[in-house]
């Protein structure tokens, strides 16, 4: 269990570091475009494509670690009034529902990527295929599912104690 938890943490953390690189890259490209446009009157071709793809990567890669750190905002107020075991039980159920939902979404996302690959869809200016980016989002969602699974196991343990 500890190994599994460590593995999920390492993977989600690594994805998050890549997301950080995407943020820096976005900033560099956007600023470069402004500088080139203002001073040389030659905007960087395809800036919009780069930015949108980098953004999709940032979010896809960042979702799981955000979940790992309980970054997705939730309302604690009412559930906190319940006994600890009841809280853990409710958490296990709501997380199970979330797990099933995001699991299906991850699967469909991969399917969506496959259809995009088959129809050869590319970003309009830079002509980079969109499907790898969508696969990355699908993978990010899959890791998010593992993060949720970790939370379910933790809750079940609390209930069983």
């Amino acid at each position, binding site marked *: 269990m500890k190994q599994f938890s460590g593995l999920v943490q390492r993977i989600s953390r690594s994805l998050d570091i890549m*997301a950080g690189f995407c943020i820096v890259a976005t900033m560099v490209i956007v600023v470069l475009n402004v500088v080139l446009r203002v001073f040389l009157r030659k905007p960087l071709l395809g800036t919009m494509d780069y930015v949108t793809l980098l953004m*999709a990567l940032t979010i896809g890669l960042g979702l799981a670690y955000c979940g790992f750190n309980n970054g997705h905002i939730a309302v604690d107020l009412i559930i906190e009034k319940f006994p600890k075991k009841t809280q853990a039980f409710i958490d296990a159920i709501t997380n199970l529902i979330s797990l099933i939902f995001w699991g299906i979404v991850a699967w469909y996302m991969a399917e969506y990527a496959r259809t995009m690959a088959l129809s050869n869809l590319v970003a309009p200016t830079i002509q980079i295929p969109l499907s790898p980016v969508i696969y990355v*989002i699908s993978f990010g969602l899959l890791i998010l599912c593992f993060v949720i699974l970790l939370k379910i196991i933790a809750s079940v343990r609390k209930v069983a104690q």
Partner: protein
Amino acid sequence: MSGLMLGVVGLIVFLILIFLRMPISFAMALVGFAGFSYMTSVSAAMNMVVRELFGNFSSYSLSVIPMFVWMGFLAYYSGIGSRLYIFAYKLIGHWPGGLAIATQTACAIFGAICGSNTATAATIGAIALPEMKKYKYDVSLATASVAAGGVLGVLIPPSVIFIVYGMATEQSIGKLFIAGIIPGILLMLLYQITISILTWRNPLLGPAGPRANWKERFSALRGGLGEVLLVFALSMGGLFVGWFTATEAGAIGAVGVLLSALAGRNISWEGFKKSLVDTTRTSAMIMLMVAGSIIFGRFMAISRVPFEMATWTGSLDLPPFVIMGIVLFIYLILGCFIDALAMILLTIPIFYPIVVDTLGYDPIWFGVIIVLVVGMGVITPPVGMNVYILKGIVPEVPLEVIFRGIWPFLIAIIVCLALLMMFPQIVSFLPNLLTK
């Protein structure tokens, strides 16, 4: 089940799920998906979900969010906040209540490079609270003034809430930003008047600090104000006059804060890395919430709930300001329980058509009003996000003590709201000036 009935059931299930601690973005997407499936088919709904997720994550207009979020975190980790505070209190710290008044000024200036009210409260709180403790300020006044000051962070541009409101209602982000400036300054002044009245009635609440000489004041001036003004002028100024898109303004702002932090050796490699981790986390949270709300909104749209609500309100024989009052009251109540961003995303599809299309209020004005109203939500019990942030900085102070100090500031916000309702020109003056 009729569409309308299904929509109402969907809303109830959504509320149950979030009160059972399911993350708000998850609950929005899940209920939106389930309702959409019921009205169409599971595969159609799943297709809609994946398209909306990818569509929003890869939206150029939403790319403005990570840029401004990063700008805020860079400012946070480079310590600009503390230097701003030192400048403000060297200037007016010797007044009764001067440190609390300085806190408001520092929050307002920090708000000019940071778009979040919690980040503003955390940044200024970390430096202002120990100082106020040193000079024996009343704990309740000290903590409450910082929590309330955080609201200035979202009112004064840049502001994440304005960005999200602008996205959801297709309003210009530049216009919303500029519209927030005067109300932000007005609220700062109202806060400062409130503190002055409190300390005038009871000087023990905020004893005067030591007076700084002019040399000290000038040296404090170099410490942060210059950087903030420069970055603000470049990034916001460029946006206002139409040189940049909002995303470009965010990126330029981030690079500006980063460069000035590097030049002054104010940010460590550790701080830089932390700023990125916080940015990816916050951006993922916001973008998933935006996508979730759009999925939820798709379900609401086919259930016709917003349409029926707008028609029903239109048929009511009440003056517009009464209906507006009811809408604001609902926001205030919801704001006590639900996060500001989630609340705006959730309610815009329902209330926006009523307020703007049926009642004919100006969309930019409504945006500013909403930011103020949800600002009240972040400092009122029981949720009051900013109050919890401060509790994290000073764990020894009980929550009730902080909340007790909040009341006078809440009154200041209500006065500000009333002024904006009576004189909408306070909001529309700057945006109109710019578009002429």
